[in-house]
C-alpha cells in the first residue's frame, strides 16, 4: 500500500482524533482511582460520560456543515469515528447507571425507563445510537443502500433527545442543557436550509 502524503496525513488525523476522544475517558479513569471524583463519584462519572456523549454527538453533527463551509468534503471520513466515540461515551453513561448506580436492579431500571420521562428519552436516544453504531460499517452501507441514509437520519432524533434528557434531569440550573440544545438545533436548521441539499444523489 503506497503511503502517499495524503494517506499519511489522514492516518495522523485519525490517530489524533482517537487520542483526543479517549482523553476524557482516561482522565475519568485516573480520577476514579485517585479519589478525584468528589463526594459522590457515581454521580460524577454519570455526569461526565453523559456530557461527553452529548458533546461528541454534537461534534458529529457539525462535521457536514463544517466540511461544506471549509470546502473539505474529505472530512466526512472522520464522522464515523467521532460518532462511534459518542456511542462509546453514551454506552459508558448507560452502563454507569445500570451497574454502578442501580447495580443491576432490573425492576428499578425498568420502572425508571417506563415512568421517568427524562430516562425514557435518554434510553431511546441510546437505542438509536446503538442501531447507528451497529450499522456503521461499509458492509451495512452496501446491504442497506438507500435505506442506510434514511436510517442514519435518526441521528437528528438522537441528538435532540440527548439534549432533552439532560434538560429534564437538571433541578434548576438549565444553562448547560439549553446551550447544548441551542447548538444542536442550529446544526439541524443549517442542514434544512443548506443549498447543497438539492444535490441529493450524493450518499450521506
Amino acid at each position, binding site marked *: 500500500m503506497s503511503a502517499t502524503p495524503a494517506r499519511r496525513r489522514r492516518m495522523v488525523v485519525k490517530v489524533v482524533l482517537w487520542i483526543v476522544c479517549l482523553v476524557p475517558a482516561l482522565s475519568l479513569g485516573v480520577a476514579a*482511582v485517585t479519589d478525584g*471524583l468528589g463526594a459522590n463519584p*457515581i454521580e460524577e462519572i454519570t455526569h461526565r460520560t453523559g456530557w461527553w456523549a452529548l458533546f461528541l454527538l454534537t461534534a458529529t453533527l457539525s462535521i457536514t456543515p463544517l466540511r461544506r463551509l471549509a470546502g473539505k468534503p474529505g472530512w466526512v471520513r472522520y464522522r464515523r469515528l467521532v460518532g462511534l466515540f459518542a456511542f462509546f461515551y453514551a454506552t459508558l453513561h448507560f452502563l454507569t447507571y445500570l451497574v454502578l448506580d442501580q*447495580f443491576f436492579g432490573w425492576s428499578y431500571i425498568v*420502572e*425508571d425507563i417506563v415512568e421517568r420521562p427524562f430516562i425514557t428519552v435518554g434510553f431511546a436516544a441510546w437505542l438509536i445510537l446503538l442501531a447507528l453504531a451497529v450499522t456503521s460499517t461499509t458492509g451495512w452501507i452496501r446491504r442497506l443502500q438507500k435505506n442506510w441514509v434514511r436510517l442514519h437520519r435518526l441521528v437528528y432524533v438522537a441528538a435532540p433527545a440527548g439534549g432533552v434528557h439532560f434538560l429534564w434531569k437538571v433541578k434548576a440550573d438549565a444553562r448547560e442543557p439549553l446551550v447544548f440544545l441551542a447548538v444542536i438545533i442550529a446544526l439541524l436548521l443549517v442542514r434544512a436550509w443548506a443549498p447543497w441539499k438539492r444535490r441529493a444523489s450524493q450518499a450521506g
Partner: protein
Amino acid sequence: MLIRRPDDIRSSEITPYRVYMNRRHFIGRSAKAAAAAALVPGLLSACVEPEKMEARPAPGTRDAQAASGRSAPQEKKWEDVRSELDESLTPYADVTGYNNFYEFGTGKEDPARNAHTLVTRPWTVEVDGEVARPAAYDLDDLLAPHSAEDRVYRLRCVEAWSMVIPWTGVPLGDVIRRLEPTSKARFVEFTTLEDPEQMPGQRRRVLDWPYVEGLRLDEAMNPLTLLATGVYGSDLPNQNGAPLRLVVPWKYGFKSIKSIVKMRFVEEMPATSWAVSAPREYGFYANVNPDVDHPRWSQGRERRLGEFRRRPTLAFNGYGEQVADLYTGLDLRRWY
C-alpha cells in the same frame, strides 16, 4: 424490606477517618464493578437518638483541619458519639465539600470554592412578626442564653443522596420559647442573606432570591429541630450555611435553610423558595417519604455518600418515632 445486622466493616470500631480511607478503595473497586458485598450497608430500623453533650468540644485539632481541606476530624471525640449509632459519619471533607448552596453556584463543589466572600461577623438576625418583642439581635446575643448541644443527624437531599452529620447547635424550640410568639403565630418563616456582592450565585436568578423557608410552629418546636452553628465540633464553614442555619432532619435538605438573617412569625403558610420555583415538585412540608416520588425521580432509595449500593429511604428519614404524630390525618401524598 430486609433488616440486616451491620457487618464487621461497619462496626463501631471504624473511625470516620477510616470511612474516608474506605471511600478511596470503594472507588477503585466500583470501577471494576466488583463485589460490593463488603460495603453493603446494614439496614437500620432504629431512629437516630439525639446526642446531648453539654460542653462545646475543644477546638484542638482545628489547625490540622485548616491545614488540609480533607483532613480527618477529631477522631477521639466523634468515635464516642458515633458508637451510639449504627451508621458511619460522612467524612468532614465531604460534608464541607459537597453542598447545594446556589447562592455560591449551582455545582456541588462551587460553595466550597466560592463561599470565602461571605462575612459572618457581625451577623444580625431580625426577629419580627407575631412575636412579643420584635428586634434585631446580634447572633451571639440571640444564642448566648442557651447551651450548645451536639446532634448527629441524617441529612437527606431531595436529589436522593444523603449524609450523616454531627451538628452543634441550639434547639430551635428553646429560642422560640424565649422570643414569645403571640397566639396568632402559626408558622415561622426564615430568610437567608441576600447580597450578590458576598454571594455571587445570586447574580443569576436561578431561584427567587432571597431564599425563604418555613416550618409550622409545632415542627419548629419539635425537640429535633436545631439552629446549628457548628459541625464536627467547629464553627460552620461558610459553605455549610455559616454562621447560623436550620437543621430539620426529617425533611428534605432544602428545608434546612442556611445563613439565616431573619425569623418571622406569621399566620399564613410561608411561600418557600423551592415550592415557588417548581410547585409540582417541591411542597411546603417536604417530609422525607419513600412512598411519594418526585415527579422526575424515585424517592424510594437514596445514595448514602461513601456507600456503593443505594439504601432504602426511610419514612421521615428514620425519625418517625419523634415526628410522625405531627402529621396524623394529613394526606402526605397531597401535602408533599
